[in-house]
Each structure stands twice: as C-alpha cells, then as structure tokens.
C-alpha cells in the first residue's frame, strides 16, 4: 500500500485545486447552484475534457486516463474541498463506475461519451424504503420498457443519459439499463435538496424505453456501492479539511476580549480534535481507494472510509459554524453550504451506524 502521494499525484491534486480555486470559487458556485441545470457546464467540460479528468480510472481504450481509483479520489477530495457543484460525481464517477462494472460491450460503448464529457449521465439505483442491496428494487423491465420509481438521483433532471437498475421480467434477474434523459415515459421531478450544490431528482418510469446494457447482481451492486462509498469518503475528507481551514482562518482574525479567539483553549482544542478526526478519515479514505480491486478487503475498507469521513465532516462543519459564532449561522456566510453537503453525504449510501455494522460483518464477525 502507498501511504504518500507520488509526485504525479501531488501535481494532479495541486492542478485541480488551483483550477477550482480560480475558476470555481464559492461565489461562482452560489451563482450557478440556483441556475436551471444547477451547475456551470463549461467548467465541467474544462475539468472533464480539457484537463482530462472525465474518466481518470477508465481504461485508455475508452478514452480514459487509465489511472487508478486513487487518482479519481484525489480529484474528488479537491472537489469536496471547493464544494464543486457540477455533475462530476454523478456522471464521471458513479455512472462511469456502473458502466465499467457492467463490463459488456454495450455498456462500454457509452463510456467514451461520458469520459469525453459529450454527455452527462447519472445512475438511478435507490428506491424509497430500499435497503442497500437489490432486494428492495421494485423497478421492473419487460420487453424493453421499465416501470417504477427511483429516488435520490443526483443531477437526475439534467442528465443526458440515465442508468437504471431494474428487475428483468420474466426472468427475475437484475439488469443495468440506459435511458435517454428525454425518453418517453420518463418523468423527472426535481426535488429540493438540502445540499444546495447537488441537484436531486425523483424519477417515475411508465413504460419508459430502456436499453439493457448488462446483467446486474448483488456482487456487482456491492462493488458499485463500495466504490461509491470510497469516492464519497474522499470527497467528504476534502470538505472537512475546508471546514477546518475556514475555522482556523476565522479564529486567527476574529478578536474578542482583546485576543484572537484562536488563542483560547476552547477553540484550540476543538480544532485539534477536528484535525485528528480528519486525518483519521483521510487515512481511511486514502487507503480504501487502493483496495478497489481486492474483493476480500474492499467492502470493509469502504465502510470504514465512509463512516470515518461522515463523522469527521459532520463534526468539522458543525464546529466551523460554532467557531464562527452568529456569523456562521447566516446565509451570507458560506459555512452552511458545506454543512448541508456534510449532512446530505452523512446519510447518502448509509449512515455511520450502518457502515460500522457492515465493517464488522465484512471482517467476518
């Protein structure tokens, strides 16, 4: 296992960070998050196509960079830090992962489009009241048409391509399907997301035309979820770090009682504890990214990363508000945007309690 970034990885990290800082500052995010697609398409193309980040861990034959999942996670960490609000996570990570896991020629033929940012995609895999496995999937396909409902679909309203997990009838097995964003029978409801920087949709499918890309099963689904957890954990570590940095910056300038609040033990100790939690989460997220091909360890590492990162980010965001005092509770102050991301990410893909339990089960206990 590698415990330090390589020179190339450090460079990747810094390049992405610089781009996001200069081109996607939070002021820009505030502007675009309320726009109709909810993001700035140009910036997304800059990142995905111009900077070549559209399919970092996708094989070169699909137009990807052929790097490892670690590099994808490095990019996500910076996006979490900057609260980047484009469809990178949904399209270039989740959808790309699903297509790679699908593994068929049919699924691969879509990859090039996503990797090159010709189209945005998302994946609809959660249903109301669903557990984190396939047993709760009610969406079903028969004769190339899907009926059912999907919830919590990232960027679902704006995506050009929608991947759907559904039960194939009459066989009863599961499949990965592709729908055009404008497919007949596909009804997209934008729902108001607590995380203002990540659009959510609920999809209703009524005899919606869909192309079956690949078989799907619990094994593939587990793999998909694990990779999603690892990606999200890295993104959350970036967010948590930003919250700590923001708290440090504010507490070094805010003066009360003739001293910076950062010189007070109460604030110092809060920050030291934030740091410890963040570094633990960073270790977990960093290492988990290296286990994506290790069947026996992957789920364990993914659950650890998700649990540690959720707790670290939620803690950091809450404490960042607290350290800012009243100003931290205002709409104008940016902290709440990360707090919203933290809260949303905390429960997405299962909360920490779920993942701690899952961790022990993955250990065989």
């Amino acid at each position, binding site marked *: 296992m590698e415990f330090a970034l390589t020179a190339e990885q450090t460079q990747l990290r810094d390049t992405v960070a610089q781009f996001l800082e200069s081109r996607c500052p939070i002021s820009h995010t505030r502007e675009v998050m309320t726009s109709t697609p909810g993001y700035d398409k140009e910036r997304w193309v800059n990142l995905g196509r111009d900077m070549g980040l559209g399919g970092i861990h996708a094989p070169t034959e699909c137009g990807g960079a052929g790097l490892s999942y670690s590099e994808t996670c490095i990019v996500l960490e910076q996006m979490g830090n900057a609260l980047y609000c484009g469809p990178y996570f949904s399209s270039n990570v989740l959808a790309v992962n699903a297509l790679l896991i699908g593994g068929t020629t049919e699924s691969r033929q879509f990859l090039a489009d996503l990797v090159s940012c010709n189209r945005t995609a998302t994946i609809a895999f*959660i249903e109301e009241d669903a557990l984190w496995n396939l047993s709760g999937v009610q969406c079903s396909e028969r004769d190339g048409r899907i009926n059912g409902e999907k*919830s*919590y679909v990232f960027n679902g309203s704006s995506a050009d391509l929608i991947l759907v997990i559904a039960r194939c009838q009459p066989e009863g097995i599961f499949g990965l399907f592709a729908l055009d964003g404008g497919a007949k029978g596909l009804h997209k*409801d934008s*729902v*108001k*997301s*607590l*995380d203002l920087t990540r659009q*959510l949709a*609920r999809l209703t499918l009524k005899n919606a035309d869909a192309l079956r890309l690949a078989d799907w099963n619990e094994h593939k689904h587990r793999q998909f979820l694990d990779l999603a957890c690892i990606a999200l954990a890295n993104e959350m570590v970036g967010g948590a770090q930003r919250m700590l940095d923001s708290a440090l910056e504010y507490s070094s*300038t*805010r*003066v*009360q*009682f*003739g*001293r910076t609040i950062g010189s*007070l033990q*109460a*604030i110092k100790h809060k920050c030291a504890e934030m740091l410890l939690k963040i570094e633990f989460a960073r270790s977990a997220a960093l290492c988990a990214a290296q286990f994506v091909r290790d069947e026996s360890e992957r789920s364990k590492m993914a659950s650890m990363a998700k649990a540690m990162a959720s707790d670290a980010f939620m803690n950091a965001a*809450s404490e960042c*508000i*607290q350290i800012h*005092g*009243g*100003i*931290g*509770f*205002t*709409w*104008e*102050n940016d*902290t*709440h945007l990360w*707090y*919203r991301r933290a*809260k*949303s990410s*905390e*429960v*997405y893909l299962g*909360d920490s*309690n779920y993942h701690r*339990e899952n961790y022990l089960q993955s250990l065989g206990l």
Partner: protein
Amino acid sequence: MQWTEARVRQEVRTWLGENWDPNARLIEWRNKLMDSGWGMPAWPTHWFGKDMPDGLIPTVQEEFARVNAVGVARTGIRLWAAETLLAHGNDEQRERFLRKILTGEEIWCQLFSEPGSGSDLAGVTTRAERKGQEWIVNGQKVWTTSAHHADYGLLLARTNWDVPKHQGMTYFVVDMKQEGVEVRPLKQMNGHASFNQVFFTDARIPLNNRIDEEGNGWRVAMTTLMHERRAANALAGQSRSKTPEGTIYEEERCENTVLSEPYTWYPQRAGRVDLAIDRAAATKTLDNPVVRQELAQLLMMSQCSEWTALRARAAREKGQPQGPEGSLGKLANSYIARQALRVHTITTGLGSMLEGEDAPMEGLIAEILLSVPAISIAGGTDEIQKNIIAERVLGMEKEPRLDGGPFREVRKN
C-alpha cells in the same frame, strides 16, 4: 397603606369587574391600564404603578387570567426597554416614552450587538460624537430583532475611546425612522430572516435622548439584560391555551403575529424532542437497537433537564440558596438539541437529504437539521456559557483579562 394578598385580590377583582371589556379597543384599554396602575403594579405610584411588592404580582396576574383580561404590551423588547427607562431615564424621558411602549403604540428594538462584538458585548465600536446640540452616530449593529418595525432603538455606543472599555460607552434612545438609519434583514442558514443589520451613517440623536450619565452605558445595558433574562424566565410556559371571545383578542393577535414572526423557527432550533418517538415509529427504526440507544439518551436528557429546572424553581420557591442547577438550562438545551438532531438524522436516513415541501414532514425535519446549530450560539455560545458556569457557579479563577487600559489601545477586530 400596606398591600396584602387579600387586599390586592379584592381590589384588582373589583377594578376588573368595573373596567374589563373583551370588546374594548386594545390601545384604549391599555391606556386605562396605565392610568389605573394595574398594568405595572410593581412600579411606583407616580409612574403608572401601585408600588406593589414583587411577591404580590402573581396575585394580580391570576386575577387577570381568571377573566382573560389583556395586559400591557409585552412582545419584543418592550418590558425590558420600559424597565430600563424607568430605572435610568429622567422624568422627561419617562414621560415621553413609557406609556406608548406599554400600550404597544410604539415599537422598540435593542441595538447592542455588533459584527465585531458578539461574545464580547462590551467591545462596542459604534461611535456617538457630540456635535453642538446633537449626538452623531456612525457604526453598525446586528442581530436586531424587529428593527424594520421599530420606532425607537436602545442604543449602546462608544463616546470615549480613552478610558477602559466598560467605561467609555453611553446609552441612548435613537429614533429609528430617520435618514441615517438603514435596516437590512439578515437571512439565516435555515432560510428565515429573524434579525436585521442596522447601519448608522451620521444618524442624529438629540441631547436629551441620552439615558443616564455619559460613560454609564454599560451599567444601563446590564439593567436591560437583567430584565431580558427575567422576562425570558417568566415567559417560559406562559400562553393562553385557547383564545376567548372578544374583539380585543383579535387586535392582540395581530400585534403578536407581526412581532413574534422572527421566532417561528425557534421550536426547530430546540430539536423538536417531542417528535422523536413518533419519528422513530414512522421511519420503522424503533426496532433498531442503535437508534434505541440514541433515542433513550435523548429522552433521558430531556426529562432530566426538565426536572433540573424544576429543582431550581422549587429551591427558589422555598427560599433555599440558589444551587448550580439553575444555571445549566441554556447549556443543557444546546446538548439536548444536538442529540435530537442526531436522532432525527438516523431515524430519517436518506430523507435528511431533502428540504422543502416534498421532504419528510413537509420540510420540518430539514428545518430542524438547519436550525439546531443556532442554539449553541444565540444568546451566548456554549463556550461562553461554560465559562460562566465555571467562574460564577463553580467559583473557578477568572481568565486574566487582556483588554484593560484605554479602549483605543485594546486589540480589536
């Protein structure tokens, strides 16, 4: 003439019998209250009161409640504005302001906090400078409830920069409806806008609107804050369960609606412990042993907090020395709210990702998730609260001060 409980009860009952009319006009009725002394019976006879000892006020209140008689205007900062002016104002100021505060005809706001002085309230840098027959005010205040409705504001401003910080402030009444005073709403992270920012640009205050001596502002502000705390304590648990019939109640309700609007999200801020069990049942997480631990922890904390408050009250009522239990309420509420937020998150699960009408409980859960962070900040952060408990209740040594000497030289924002 000595007040006794029996005499009080008899007199107020008689007076109410003769005067109370649920269909009177609100302002008219309250003017009657002010004239009679029954609106503020603890106040001096020559200032709208009856010189009644504090211990007998509950008797008056009971009699008012018995017939559902409306009292003086109490919403917003009125009571503590009036108490401050009674205590520190001169007769001319009392004459000009007290009546219309308590009839509700004029609305007041409190201008203490500033962007640069939050926990450190005495760090005020809004300046008032005397120019001829006026004071000229420049600076910025924040967290001002109802500033956009207010006719007058209680302003704490710095008038002397060459003395220690607590000695250089002066207390004023400022006319809010003047050029030079700009009010902007301040939107919170939960979407509500309960508070305002107030900008002063060469705003003008006549000389006779200074309250108490120049440099005495901190002492006057302490009076205001003391009455604010008292009112907050007294308010807890006071509300009419249902509105009786009569036109006066409608007028009263209108008044309340406007001024209590800023507080509509306050129950969410407290984490809505009352919903926790039902939510666990509704989300089918009540059989999850881990959720059960968190839920039990929440319910226990909540129950213990309530009992701790009742212990404080019982000790007060028995005339026993105030124990530590009386100072823990604010900190306790903050911890309970955070635990409630945790319970709402783990019971609601994925639904916590939503906000607005389609979200769980029509967005109520989201509002809880976005409001609870305020409770450990507003009205004194948890950290300040712990300092107070440590120093005042537990008697621990104070932190050495670094803000002594002339305020001009004190490090500030």
